[in-house]
């Protein structure tokens, strides 16, 4: 018995150690994608892997031919460990990289062939460096990391040294090396000069002016030095925390520690509270109104998005939980306290390609936000904030909130009904056979147009009607057609926009058929059955896309090459995508995105990476 218990304990311990690549994720990681089932990735070629945007920061030495013709299987990775891709940006520096398990060091260095061994300051840790990146190996785990000071930090330090040395504005010297410009520079001028300098075709050959004394650094050389020093400093800082203090993301955020235990194919972690802090508009807040900034930061505390990715035989499921703090949660809870408007279903055709519904209660959200935000603003002793607070309170008193929120309650829906030919006009040139002189003639033409419908619930449709009535006096292109209004050539200067106010809904559409023949709804052809039930029962949001009807209609021009590749992979496959949401509580809202498809993907590992990359691009 003791033998079995020992065996179980040993197995548990070994398994525990076998899954430790996540212990090398620095605490500064704000976004993490952790791929559990990396067996799937064995077939993925390394060339494909390094072409993903989420690998962009660390790919330089991988993308130098050493990966040619190889797959991840040849890379020495341990497929029993997780592969964790991370990214994080703080006030001082940003980090990017990935952690992995290692099975065969020799094989690993046939891929990482540009790394050279350096002296490691950490016991039991091997350090390898290349021009951009650092590879640290501890036992059978590896950390490939790049640490860069933020541009703001480099600017700040470089400028302070530069001016302290008594030099003038370096940009002046750059733009007007010989001119004596005495006027004042405004922002627009500066932007113009910047464009002129850097948008030229010769920018690759641009060299900054030298100092008279060759031993003194010019501004750009100084900047490079600052960059290098701070890069080393922050790299040491991050590694000290990891390898000396043993402090990592697992210890820093227990939500991540819990989440990474999930056995799904991949997990996703985004600490929105830290992501919010780096937002540019909050930087302004931090500088100008530090107290207010701290209060807003407090509001976002606990804001984290946790996701699980499941790959099934004929489905991919993405479960996401958005967690937030009590105060923000109280606003979301009130906002999502809204019933589904059944009349919406009347305007969704049973054969539609895609639709969504969104139910929110703006009135309650406004009242709650007012309760939460006004006390925060009241604490700020600042003229501008006080003035804005006064305006807010006056508006709150004087504006007829009943009229406002009854006009736009917040609930809306949208449909995509595919591409239809619409009638337009074009100019042709007609030639006289006698002289070949030509004249212009306007003729009827047809062009493709995506057909959309967007509507919102209203109890005061008379208010938008008033606006339309006045607009129709201003231009003959606005017309009241009885059951609907039309604004001619409103969409892309070609198609008409129709407006319907019926059944407590105000609807905008470029669907002529809906306006002219179905202004009361599609009747027997309206959406019914299970889809309608799901839309009604979902939380504040529901979305459904029928790929077979939608994907072929996506305009290729609007997507880049990689996105088109992903869309191409989906073309020709039937299936649907469904987004549902839970009821919102003060603590969290859950979303579930399921993509069901018929047929198999040739390489599910590549598909997994496609999805991870999409999420990375969206979340970055």
């Amino acid at each position, binding site marked *: 018995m003791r033998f079995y218990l020992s065996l179980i304990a040993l197995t548990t311990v070994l398994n525990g150690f076998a899954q430790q690549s996540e212990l090398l994720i620095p605490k500064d990681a704000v976004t993490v994608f952790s791929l559990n089932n990396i067996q799937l990735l064995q077939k993925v070629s390394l060339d494909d892997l390094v072409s993903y945007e989420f690998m962009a920061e660390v790919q330089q030495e991988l993308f130098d031919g050493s990966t040619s013709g190889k797959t991840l299987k040849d890379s020495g990775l341990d497929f029993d460990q997780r592969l964790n891709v991370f990214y994080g940006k703080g006030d001082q520096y940003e980090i990017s990289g990935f952690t992995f398990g290692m099975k065969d060091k020799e094989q690993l260095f046939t891929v990482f062939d540009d790394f050279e061994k350096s002296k490691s300051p950490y016991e039991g840790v091997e350090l390898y460096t290349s021009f951009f990146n650092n590879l640290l190996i501890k036992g059978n785990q590896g950390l490939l990391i790049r640490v860069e000071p933020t541009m703001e930090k480099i600017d700040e330090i470089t400028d302070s040294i530069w001016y302290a040395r008594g030099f003038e504005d370096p940009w002046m010297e750059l733009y007007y090396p010989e001119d004596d410009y005495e006027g004042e520079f405004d922002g627009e001028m500066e932007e113009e000069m910047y464009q002129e300098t850097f948008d030229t*075709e010769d920018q690759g050959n641009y060299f900054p002016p030298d100092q008279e004394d060759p031993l003194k650094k010019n501004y750009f050389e100084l900047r490079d030095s600052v960059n290098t020093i701070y890069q080393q400093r922050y790299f040491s800082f991050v590694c000290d925390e990891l390898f000396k203090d043993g402090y990592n993301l697992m210890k820093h955020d227990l939500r991540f520690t819990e989440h990474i235990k999930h056995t799904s194919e991949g997990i996703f972690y985004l600490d929105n509270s830290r992501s919010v802090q780096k937002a540019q508009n909050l930087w302004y807040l931090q500088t100008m109104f530090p107290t207010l900034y701290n209060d807003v930061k407090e509001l976002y505390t606990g804001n984290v998005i946790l996701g699980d990715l499941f790959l099934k035989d004929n489905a991919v499921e993405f479960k996401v939980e958005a967690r937030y703090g009590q105060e923000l949660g109280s606003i979301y809870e009130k906002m999502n306290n809204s019933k589904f408007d059944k009349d919406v279903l009347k305007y969704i055709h049973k054969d539609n390609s895609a639709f969504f519904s969104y139910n929110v209660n703006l009135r309650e959200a406004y009242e709650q936000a007012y309760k939460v935000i006004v006390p925060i603003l009241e604490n700020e002793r600042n003229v501008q904030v006080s003035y804005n607070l006064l305006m807010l309170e006056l508006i709150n008193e004087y504006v007829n909130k009943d009229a406002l929120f009854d006009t736009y309650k917040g609930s809306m829906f949208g449909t995509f009904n595919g591409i239809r030919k*619409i009638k*337009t*006009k*074009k*100019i*042709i*040139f007609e*030639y006289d*056979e*006698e*002289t*070949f002189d*030509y004249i*212009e003639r306007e003729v009827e*033409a047809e*062009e*493709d*147009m995506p057909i959309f419908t967007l509507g919102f619930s209203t109890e005061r449709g008379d208010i938008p009607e008033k606006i339309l009535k006045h607009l129709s006096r201003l231009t003959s292109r606005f017309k009241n057609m009885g059951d609907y209004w039309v604004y001619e050539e409103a969409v*892309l*200067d*070609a*198609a008409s926009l129709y407006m319907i106010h019926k059944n407590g809904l105000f609807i905008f559409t470029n669907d002529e058929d809906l306006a002219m023949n179905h202004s009361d709804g599609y009747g027997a052809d309206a959406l019914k059955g299970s889809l309608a039930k799901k839309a009604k029962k979902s939380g504040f949001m529901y979305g459904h896309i029928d790929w077979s009807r939608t994907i072929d209609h996506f*305009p*290729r*021009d*609007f*997507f*880049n*090459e990689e996105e088109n590749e992903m869309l191409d992979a989906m073309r020709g496959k039937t299936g649907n995508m469904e987004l549902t949401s839970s009821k919102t509580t003060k603590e969290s809202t859950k979303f579930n995105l399921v993509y069901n498809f018929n047929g198999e993907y040739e390489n599910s590992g590549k598909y997994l990476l496609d999805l991870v990359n999409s999420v990375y691009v969206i979340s970055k």
Partner: protein
Amino acid sequence: MKHRIYFLIIGLVFGLTSCIEIIDDVTIHNDGSGTYKYTVNLSASKVKINSILALDSLDGKKVPSKEDIENDFLDVIESLKKKSGITNVDYSMDFSDYIFKLQCDFKSIEYLQDAIKAIVKEQSKEKDSEEYNYNWISWDGNKLMRSIPELDIKQTKSMKQEDIDLLKTGNYTSITRFDRPVDRFENAKALMSKNKMAVMIKTDPYSLTQDYNLLENTIYLTPQK
């Protein structure tokens, strides 16, 4: 023999592929002076163009605003006005139907050719190229020789199929007019007007990108009385 002269305006204006119609119309008087007219008609694709112009970027490249297009076009006009031997420069830009016209008088074919070469050079990244030495039109008083630009075939190879299809549905019309009747011409695809004073060749932009000799022609006029 690489020229992008005729496509300069299109390149400047859009860099986008749409159902396009181009008319290139040259009138040559007996004394060698004449009038040059160039028309780009994108009205058949105005929905597509409007939808693209509504975007900030497309396929990773910045989409020019109407103002950018107008400024680029005006740059070419202003530059053309300053060229010697070029007078009466006129233009129109119709942003509702996307029709762009340019017209000028020239003292002689050489002046026109030099002016266009200079503008291409100004707008091009390549400041020194053998292309600028190539003469694409010549006139000796009785015989006119015209060749036409070579669109970069490599560029069309990287185009998406639907863009190539759009180029195929477009029109490229080249007209050459004279003060006296045409005797004969060498391009079998050319047509003569009933009054024998003009020669026209029609093709589509895609065919031109594949065979830039399509519009090459030598036109012989009847002797001057």
